[in-house]
């Protein structure tokens, strides 16, 4: 071996690198999940035991009633609703922005209330679908009031530590003298016990 002397540098066998990498990969695949921290944000009403005045007369015109039964069928303003749920968005916007024009529709956005009543047997899927459209209608209106898109409104509403975001958020909701001119009046009623 006189010719090869000094030429072959001894190398560490790196064929097991792939095995080590596979092991680590399988470990991470098994022990981790892709985090999901997004969803529909909601503020629940106060403790029912704390509410003092129960009887507040709300005129029928200021109430937009949506009802879902245990078979996930809907009644909107008393009429069966067989159309695409997405059409609710325009209907709600029309209702809230009525400002007294149509005597059957709301007086002002401040007094307009969207009421969602479900049954104990209603599926979460249908409930979320309808809630999505209700929130969508309000977010669209807020976004239009300050000249941003729906997506931008949701982003700025999610980070109110930024003073500019807070200012836009309050402006969109019409905060004047501590009162909101355009509150998000969504009433989620206690589910009825009629269906399964």
């Amino acid at each position: 071996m006189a010719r090869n002397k000094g030429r072959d540098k001894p190398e560490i066998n790196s064929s097991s690198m792939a095995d080590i990498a596979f092991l680590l990969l399988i470990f991470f695949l098994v022990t981790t999940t892709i985090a999901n921290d997004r969803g529909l944000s909601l503020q629940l009403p106060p403790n029912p035991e704390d509410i003092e005045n129960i009887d507040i007369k709300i005129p029928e015109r200021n109430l937009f009633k949506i009802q879902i039964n245990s078979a996930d069928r809907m009644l909107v303003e008393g009429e069966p609703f067989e159309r695409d749920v997405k059409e609710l968005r325009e209907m709600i916007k029309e209702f809230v922005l009525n400002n007294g024009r149509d005597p059957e529709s709301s007086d002002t956005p401040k007094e307009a209330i969207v009421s969602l009543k479900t049954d104990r047997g209603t599926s979460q899927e249908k409930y979320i679908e309808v809630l999505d459209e209700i929130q969508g209608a309000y977010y669209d209106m807020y976004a239009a009031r300050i000249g941003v898109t729906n997506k931008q409104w949701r982003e700025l509403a999610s980070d109110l530590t930024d003073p500019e975001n807070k200012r836009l958020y309050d402006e969109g909701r019409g905060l004047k003298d501590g009162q909101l001119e355009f509150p998000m009046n969504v009433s989620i009623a206690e589910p009825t016990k009629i269906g399964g």
Partner: protein
Amino acid sequence: MSKFKKKANTKQDIPTSALPDIIFMLLFFFMVTTVLREVTINVKQRIPDATQLRKLQRKSLVSYLYIGEPKKTDQWGSEPRVQANDVFIEPSDVILWVTTEKDKLNEVERDQITIAMKVDREAKRGLVADVELELRKANARKLLYTTLQEMDE
């Protein structure tokens, strides 16, 4: 020429020296985009889609509730249950659970606790509403229904 063909006796090995690099790339991807799971979810979770998604403001102020049909139906039945921190609880236990979760937080931040509810699409509104009632009594009113982003058609 002989009657028998001479077979060529060469072998070509595909170089697999790039394999570890590919695996490492996959590994880094998973290390960066995932979170170590802390709770084993024992209920079926088929999360509904929605469009009006908002992000959680502060991850440290969130507590999770999982609602759905149990995965092990022979042991737990097929009625939707509520799971909090690895155990199944009844809606009546929710107030106690909320107090425990609030105790883990700073005094000042207790009121800003958000409850993230991961509800299966087939779970009934009745059970979810019972839990919501208990949350109202426990003064944990900030709620988030976890949903997936609906793909625009």
